[in-house]
């Protein structure tokens, strides 16, 4: 047994929220390398360059570190399909200066998945990036995302996490450039005895930058969720904004939610805030919906879905939002 996914700081209690226990068999499969400081992702120059990535789909079952540089703007999707059992993916994407692009990283049907993904967003590049995780319900997944943003770079990250028995995600963004923005929107759904460990971390160095996290989720059955969100406003990041919110809807009395929303502030001239809320579906809302003919289950799922819509509605239409919506309903057992 080994512990991974630590937060950069320690809490006054010490009962597992700081790190995630990994079984021995997973250690042998490489999961122990899962931590920002031991990322597998190479930092050298790209070994593959695609001059034209319009609508390009990469599905060549990557097993080793592959690097891509996106050179051209496009409204279409650049898609990476990772679909394999017992896979280890290691991907490094560079988005060149002044490029506007949409990237979809589609991971599904893994038994065991360990993916490390590094993305550099160069000066004035604007990127919409979606991680769509649709795992087998018995799978184990470790995902590591490492993001660097240069001056005026903007990255909207949509992290949609469905399925899997154990899902451990570590997202680390460095807002190095001035006027850089990272909006991280995430949806999670825990069912059965799922374990979710989400460790989202943003380091803000550049002036006038925006580090925004918005996380919405629901927990059913005996699902156990640990959310660790940290926005670190470093000295010199004047006029920057750090804002994180997490909303967790508890649909079962046996579900368990731990939230640790941290704001670390070493700079005076910033605006940092966070908010978390946990609760069940309001009885009055349920009563109203049921008086309109819905069953209790339908009413609950409608409310949960409405919460998710707060994020889904932000996703640009170039992404498969309909599929996400369909998948959401399926996960919520609300599909005909």
């Amino acid at each position, binding site marked *: 047994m080994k512990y991974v996914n630590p937060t950069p700081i320690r*809490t*006054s209690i010490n009962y597992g*929220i700081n790190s995630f226990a990994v079984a021995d068999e997973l250690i042998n499969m490489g999961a122990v390398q899962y931590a920002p400081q031991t990322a597998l992702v190479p930092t050298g120059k790209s070994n593959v360059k695609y001059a034209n990535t319009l609508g390009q789909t990469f599905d060549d079952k990557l097993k080793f570190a592959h690097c891509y540089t996106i050179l051209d703007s496009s409204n279409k999707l650049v898609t990476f399909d990772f679909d394999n059992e017992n896979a280890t993916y290691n991907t490094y994407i560079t988005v060149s200066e002044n490029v506007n692009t949409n990237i979809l990283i589609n991971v599904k049907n893994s038994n065991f998945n360990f993916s490390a993904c590094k993305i550099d967003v160069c000066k004035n590049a604007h990127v919409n990036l979606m991680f769509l995780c649709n795992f087998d319900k018995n799978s184990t997944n470790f995902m590591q995302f490492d993001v660097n943003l240069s001056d005026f770079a903007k990255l909207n990250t949509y992290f949609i996490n469905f399925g899997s028995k154990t899902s451990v995600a570590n997202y680390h963004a460095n807002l190095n450039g001035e006027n850089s923005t990272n909006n991280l929107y995430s949806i999670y759904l825990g069912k059965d005895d799922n374990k979710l460990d989400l460790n989202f971390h943003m380091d803000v160095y550049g002036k006038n930058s925006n580090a925004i996290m918005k996380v919405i989720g629901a927990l059913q059955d005996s699902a156990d969720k640990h959310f660790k969100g940290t926005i670190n406003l470093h000295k010199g990041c004047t006029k920057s904004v750090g804002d994180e919110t997490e909303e967790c809807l508890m649909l079962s009395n046996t579900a368990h*939610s731990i*939230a640790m929303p941290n*704001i670390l502030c070493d700079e005076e001239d*910033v605006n940092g805030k966070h908010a978390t*809320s946990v609760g069940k579906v309001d009885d009055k809302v349920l009563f109203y919906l049921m008086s309109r003919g819905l069953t209790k289950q339908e009413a609950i799922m409608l409310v949960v879905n409405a919460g998710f819509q707060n994020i889904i509605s932000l996703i640009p239409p170039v992404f498969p939002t309909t599929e996400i919506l369909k998948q959401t309903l399926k996960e919520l057992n609300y599909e005909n």
Partner: protein
Amino acid sequence: MNKTKVDDINTAWFDFVDADNFEFKMTAGIDENIVREISKQKNEPQWVLDLRLKALQIYEKLPMPTWGPDLSELNMNEISTYVRPRAKKQTSWDDVPENIKQTFDKLGIPKAEREYLAGVGAQYDSEVVYHSIKDELIKKGVIYTDFDSAIREYPDLVKKYFSKCTPLSEHKFIALHYAVFSGGSFVYVPKGVKLDQPLQSYFRLNSPESGQFEHTLIIVEEGASLHFIEGCSAPKYSKINLHAGCVELFVMDGATLRYSTIENWAKNMMNLNTKKAIVGKDANMIWVSGSFGSHISMLYPMSILSGENARTEYTGISFAGATQNLDTGFKVVHAAPHTKSIVSAKSISKNGGISTYRGLVRIMPNAAHSSCSVSCDGLMLDDISRSDTIPVNDVGTADVQFSHEAKVGKISEKAIFYLMSRGLTREDAVALIVRGFANPISKELPMEYAVEMNRLINLELVGGIG
């Protein structure tokens, strides 16, 4: 652009020093011989010595905290754990030695006693030198005495509750506390007795390179109510002093306890204090806490809401100036249905001071229909200070209402502009905002302490600095 200067908390007037005129000062360090000697000096029963020795074993085994501020400056080999002043416990200020009486006079304790307190305890270094309580309260069965006397005079009560709220093994410094504890207060409020005026214990540490380890045990029986005020200060020395006290509070069914603390330790003090309350059915525990002094503080009061419909409120403010690292917060465990907690924490940091809110809310699976609201605000007054918020929210049932919000930043220029457009100077506008920021705390304090706190947050306002 104009910058407004807000002064550090002015604790200098607490820094007057008495001659280190002790009757007995324990050799520095901590080992079994020292623990046995403390027990011998205090002429304690065997069961207390046994508890001390057990605590010492635990202390030696437990590691230093792996989180929070750096405690490497603390060298227990340089700390004397027991200092007995040249004074016996008195019930009249006239009998207290003149130098010690003068100390408490300067701190305003006798005056406060005359004007609005129902009882006072005053501890000087490791021993209580003055304790009094109004006769009418004695007639009602209220016990308010120093902890050493309580061990001798009320052994059954003490044995029943002592170390039951805060066990020996909770952390390294609580184990240290139990090994060398001395002084402190014991309060017992019988069933249904409501005290109209507060009781106050004041702890003064005068001796350099020493520690204060007072134990406060308060039992508020069913339907009773009490307001207890704790004050503490020490003069500043160049070497580290240590405060590792312990407060155990039992708030029985339907009782109310308000526990107010104004802490002005000198800036060479490590304040590693532990405070915990167990709150019964329909009972109410209110914490009001002002942390202004100390070099390093690790202070996280805790309420365990063990009875149905129990409530707790925490209102706290900390002001971290130069060389200060104040790591404070509040912990609450909802362990019964229909329990409620409200947490409001504020911090101000300046001149390189570090303020951290480190809190915990745990709602147990059996705590259905509970609600919790946490609010943290951090105000940074310059660009060399630091303010962190590190909460943990652990919810184990669906049927709850839980919300947490925190904000950190500087004083809004818009707010200053607005107030200036209404005719205030920039300095007055900033002063108004800072006082307004601290107001939720000061309004929870008795009037005299609110005035005191406002005096501590002494604003020196200088305009025109670029």
